[in-house]
């Protein structure tokens, strides 16, 4: 087995050398191995992320684009465990490591060790701040702001807003909320009259909204962070209040409820979130880096937005209990790299 690996390795080296002398082809990365280091798999978004990774990478391996693309998830969502996992991946000789990190800073030691060993490190979603790594970041602030842009367009008169936030103390929650507040500052006809933490979960959101509703004036819009729209709708319904415009977050139950309302009374809203398939974008970016492409260290992921017109199409493609998803292709990655 050992000898076999060595032969493969030396063959790989020979292949790379050959590739350098010949004109670069698509299969330049055919002998490269990419690993996914993931810190958590305990919710629908992460499950969809892993499924997308598996789907796209197994096709890529079959087509000979890369030699292998294995996914590793730590058993517990802990920084020290993921640091050890990254060190193991270095030992296993991967050429690139794609990371969804448990902490933006605390993995830097392990990431720097990987870089020192000549391994390309690409972080996405949960990014790492080590200068030698690539970051595929999500502009969460923009995600919050976009909601206000939509509201301002569809409700020029403005009104009272209820904000549902995510998990307290998490960076993502602060960013989205900051974006929402920035949007409100720019559109002064809107006013946030209440704010609750829904922890990105329908049941928590429903309870939190039901708790605050009796103390609130009439609400015209609900700004959210995803995973909380359906719960909010249920709370409004149970309280017998007029249904406000609730921004959704691409979850299947949210889209389904929206579709029902749309069919019944022409309910209008929009839905925005990050597609779990962003892992596949990270995969293609890693492949491009290994291929020698000049990739800037900071990249930004596009959001996945669902609008009134493509609701049916997106809902049909989303499994029950899952999140609207899109898998990225090599061309998408090239576009993101080019900054388009």
């Amino acid at each position: 087995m050992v000898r076999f690996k060595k032969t493969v390795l030396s063959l790989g080296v020979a292949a790379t050398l050959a590739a350098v002398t010949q004109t670069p082809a698509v299969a330049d990365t055919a002998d490269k191995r990419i690993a996914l280091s993931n810190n958590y798999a305990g919710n629908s978004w992460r499950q969809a992320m892993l499924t997308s990774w598996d789907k796209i990478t197994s096709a890529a391996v079959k087509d000979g684009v890369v030699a292998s693309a294995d996914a590793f998830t730590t058993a517990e969502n802990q920084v020290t465990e993921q640091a050890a996992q990254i060190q193991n991946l270095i030992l296993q000789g991967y050429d690139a490591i794609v990371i969804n990190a448990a902490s933006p800073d605390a993995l830097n030691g392990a990431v720097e060790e990987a870089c020192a060993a000549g391994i390309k490190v690409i972080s996405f979603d949960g990014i790492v701040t080590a200068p030698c790594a690539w970051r595929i970041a999500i502009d969460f602030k923009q995600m919050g702001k976009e909601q206000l842009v939509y509201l301002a367009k569809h409700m020029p008169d403005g009104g009272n807003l209820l904000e549902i936030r995510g998990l307290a103390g998490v960076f993502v929650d602060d960013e989205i909320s900051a974006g929402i507040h920035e949007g409100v500052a720019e559109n002064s006809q809107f006013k946030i009259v209440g704010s609750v933490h829904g922890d990105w979960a329908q049941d928590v959101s429903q309870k939190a909204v039901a708790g605050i509703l009796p103390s609130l004036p009439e609400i015209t819009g609900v700004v959210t962070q995803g995973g909380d729209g359906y719960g909010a709708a249920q709370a409004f319904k149970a309280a017998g209040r007029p249904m406000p415009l609730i921004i959704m977050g691409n979850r299947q139950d949210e889209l389904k409820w929206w579709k029902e309302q749309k069919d019944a009374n022409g309910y209008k809203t929009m839905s925005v979130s990050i597609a779990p398939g962003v892992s596949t974008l990270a995969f293609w970016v890693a492949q491009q880096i290994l291929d020698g492409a000049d990739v800037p260290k900071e990249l930004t992921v596009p959001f996945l937005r669902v609008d009134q017109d493509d609701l049916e199409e997106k809902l049909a493609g989303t499994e029950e209990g899952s999140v609207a998803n899109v898998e990225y292709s090599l061309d998408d990655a090239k576009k993101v790299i080019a900054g388009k």
Partner: protein
Amino acid sequence: MKSFVPSSRLLRSLLPAFSLTVILIAIFYLQPRAMSYFGLNLLLNLALPIAFATLAQMCVITVNDLDLGIGAFVGFVACVGATWLNESPLLGVAVLLLCILAYAAMGALIHLRNLPSIVVTLGMSFFWLGLALLVLPTPGGKAPEWVREAMTFKAPGLPTTIYASALVALVVHFALMRSSYGAVVRGVGGNPRSVERAGWSILKAKMSMYALAGFFGVLSGISLIGLTTSADANIALRYTLLSIAGVILGGGEFVGGRISPVGAVLGAMTLTLAASFLSFLRISPDWQIGAQGAILIIVLALRVLINRTGKK
């Protein structure tokens, strides 16, 4: 039959080294690349903070108590290390000394009020976590340069971690197993009443062991940020259970002052390597925690087996 008894004791004390060797061989077999300076360094460097945390836990277990707050404490130390210790070293050192004093005071409180250590330390774990969040609300900070250099120092021959762990294990071994006061302290765990009758202060013994635990907790936190370069309040929550498992795996017992410092360090390394071993085996994460538990059970079953043959 008499000649058999010491050999069973010997077997028992050799068990931690044996388990470590087995895991190491298995890893070398699965991943030949690990069999190098570079590989050993990568495999073992995260074991040093765990070894320190395990020694801290062992100090508390020596006097028949259990520390459920050590993980949060290490996290707090890491946060202090990545902020104050870096920006104003004097303040940082002062705070860390205060931490050790706080641990001694905790030992005194537990003894004087006759409180269950589990309750006090569990309560304190929330206190430490809260403090850590106050010091460092979002992950970040920067480890002091000298800590970073010390932890990335490449010693000749073998990775620094191995030298450091061996040194610490030996120092603690001589302090607790070979010195006369060490015997008294272990006696507090074994038979406190007779130790008291002999004229020794149990309060003093408990306070010094808790202070020592605090000291090792500080070392654990500082060495951890030397590896990670920055801190996170939740960085070491796992250390609480890991440290208890490390002590037991290393031949210690929950009661009776029966401990083994060398074993505890070996136990911490075994646990670290066990996780790597399972990941090299490519076991699904859903099963990994269970598999880690299975390794623990196997080692403990071996120990019971050795104990039984010893009694016959």
